[in-house]
């Protein structure tokens, strides 16, 4: 049965926070002058994970398994570290199913830019709690509300030494674009956690909820100060900081591998 051709037109709900993220990604890639031929967009499975199919300028895509965007991206980056490798995926994908890869990609500090559309819910599977869901969040599975402490991916990325750790908000595209470009320009692993309203399944953390709370991190913050970064990372509630929390200054994994000093593996083939 012909149910319409391939989906290069977003299959997202009207009003979803993924739209401005997609648009901003397009803009950031252009502004950072990323050649689509030398870019691979990697994702797992989920609503956010469909984003690579929708970008403006056709590029390379690896839309892998749920939770496995990071290892796929790692393989790509190690095989051809001269490519830009950007992940755009969901919170469940990255912090739930993919949690172990997240820890270890950060430790490796591999030069992957990881944009997490954090809607604090599992969108595609219709609204279960995600690792970042707030306590008390009620779903069809968590009937009495979530009792786990929400995962703190920002703090985790800081303590395990990522090159770049930031948060932004889909509702502030100017800020978001700046963060994306800064991440793209980082050597090493970059985490950009993006607050993203899900209008269908998250009736708590709405656009307004985020809008009322997000506060750009002040000029005074030194992102090389880990202690300060961590203190900021625990702010969640009436005020939610957005901006660059932390920069570790560590060299990227690929820059430390002898075999990759001159040419990429792909260039060395044959």
């Amino acid at each position: 049965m012909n149910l319409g051709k391939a989906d290069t037109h977003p299959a997202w709900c009207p009003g979803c926070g993924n739209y401005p993220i997609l648009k901003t990604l397009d803009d950031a890639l252009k502004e950072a002058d990323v050649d689509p031929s030398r870019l691979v967009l990697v994702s797992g499975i989920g609503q956010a994970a469909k984003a690579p199919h929708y970008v403006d300028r056709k590029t390379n895509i690896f839309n892998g398994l749920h939770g496995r965007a990071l290892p796929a991206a790692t393989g790509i980056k190690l095989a051809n570290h001269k490519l830009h490798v950007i992940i755009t995926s969901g919170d469940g994908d990255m912090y739930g199913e993919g949690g172990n890869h997240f820890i270890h990609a950060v430790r490796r500090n591999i030069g992957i830019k990881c944009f997490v559309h954090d809607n604090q819910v599992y969108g595609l599977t219709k609204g279960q709690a995600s690792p970042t869901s707030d306590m008390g969040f009620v779903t069809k599975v968590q009937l009495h509300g979530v009792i786990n402490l929400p995962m703190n991916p920002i703090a985790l990325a800081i303590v395990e030494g990522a090159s770049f750790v930031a948060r932004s908000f889909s509702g502030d595209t100017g800020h978001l674009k700046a963060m994306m470009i800064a991440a793209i320009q980082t050597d090493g692993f970059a985490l950009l956690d993006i607050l993203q309203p899900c209008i269908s399944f998250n009736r708590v953390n709405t656009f307004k909820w985020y809008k009322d709370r997000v506060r750009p991190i002040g000029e005074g913050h030194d992102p090389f100060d880990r202690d300060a970064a961590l203190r900021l990372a625990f702010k969640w509630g009436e005020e939610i900081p957005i901006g660059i929390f932390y920069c570790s200054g560590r060299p990227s994994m690929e820059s430390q591998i002898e075999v990759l000093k001159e040419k990429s593996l792909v260039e060395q083939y044959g």
Partner: protein
Amino acid sequence: MDINIRVAGEAGQGVASAGDLLAQSLAMMGLHVLATQSYMSRIRGGLNWYDVRISDRELFAGREKADLLVALTDEALETLRETVALGGAILSESSKADGTIHIDFTQAAVEAGGAKMMANTVATGAVYALLGYEVEDLCRQLSEVFKNKSGDILAQNVACARKGFELTRAYRGKVKGPAPVGAPGALYSGAESIALAASSGGVKFYIAYPMSPSTATLNFMAKASDRYGIVVEQAEDEIAAVNMACGAAYAGVPAMTGTSGGGFALMVEGLSLAGITELPIVIMVAQRPGPATGLPTRTAQGELKFAISAGHGEFARAIYAPGSPQQCYDLTRLALETAHKYQTPAIILTDQFLQDLQKNIPPLDDTPRPINRCIVTDAGEDYARYAVTESGISPRAIPGGPAKVLVDSDEHDESGHITEDLGIHLAQHDKRMRKLQGMTAEAIGPELYGPDSAEMLLVCWGSTYMPCREAVDSLNASGESAAMLHFAQVWPINVATAGQKLGRRRRVICVEGNATGQLASVLRETGIIGEVELLLRYDGMPFTAEYIVERIKS
């Protein structure tokens, strides 16, 4: 002439280094050598042994019995004494045991000016004396082994070897070794042969999580990495490993991973990913007894049906099951080629027995001979990764050039974009499955060893090749009429070719290292055979010719 030397002791006592030393020096002398290892899942203590079998004709498998047992501990003596063949000899550290040649290896090492832990070198000297060989041949090999160590270490070891030789001079030639016949000088293990084929064949990314008995290949790859320009990385888990391999394959380099059953279980979702994204990855599965952790350091052939059916959904895969170090080399290369030609995963099924087994064979080619990745380099902006073709093979480009390469674990259209169109799904699914036609046509047929007309046929796969082959020789020598049919490729199976070689036999016996006769099932399923006899071993130990012959005759 055929002598089996069994060196046994605790983990950490140098059983393996004594065994290696003997195997290497005896091979260097021009004897046919076959070395196998039995060890426990511990770093110190317990009971390990190392068999070095030597002969003036080519060897293929180990033996149940030993002609010469070297027991470095009391436990080794007690447990393995019963495995000594009639007319055999025992060299033993223990003075309490009767009927053994007692040498205090440790004391002798110290007396020779060496360290206590050089007891194992003393033992090798004694072995040389018993075999009636010259200790100089052993010392030559010692110079080789210790060439990068300080001169002292070498000198001490040489002194220990001589000491052992001297102390046993009275028994010179008691277990007379065969005369050297100019056998090829290089010993290869299965693990190393796979690594050699992989590194010379162009694998640029080897990713694994340690797991016995696959780790030896990982170590060899690491060793090869600088020479061949390979990134060898330890993954955080096996799921990461298989997905990283997919990523690297996508980006354009041959990628491989290795594991054992438990790790492979974790890779199964990734296998499916390689199936739908049509990525050429190679997975080595080194089998050991399960279920679950089972017996980590023993051998088994329990993963045949699992490997054939692993992964959700249906897709093409090739599965090879090498039967010797040479086949490990050849089939690893073929696995890489098939994976790339058909853009689909290939699996190499090996096992602890074959991983650790060493055999001297003509040198394997280690010059870099990267396989053809079968990629197109002239694809342009309008490139579509999954063009529907008659062969099922779509021209494959890699990212970095003008052609954009889109792959998706969801069903996708020809361009690689996600789709929910059921017609496109059908077209893509059929396209992927069509590859099996070419793969089946090209599948290497089973090898028939022995007379065409043999009445009895031993059917086997993988490492059982070696003991079966010896069993066939032994059966025929004893007046039976036997042959072997060995499947080095276990999936897909070319039914016509296989059936033809099977012919009509009085007795068909499947010889397998599992409890259910998995190859027999597969051959029944594919319609090649009906009911057959099963000769199964699943106690964790490898088959030997003796074991097979005895079971057949009884």
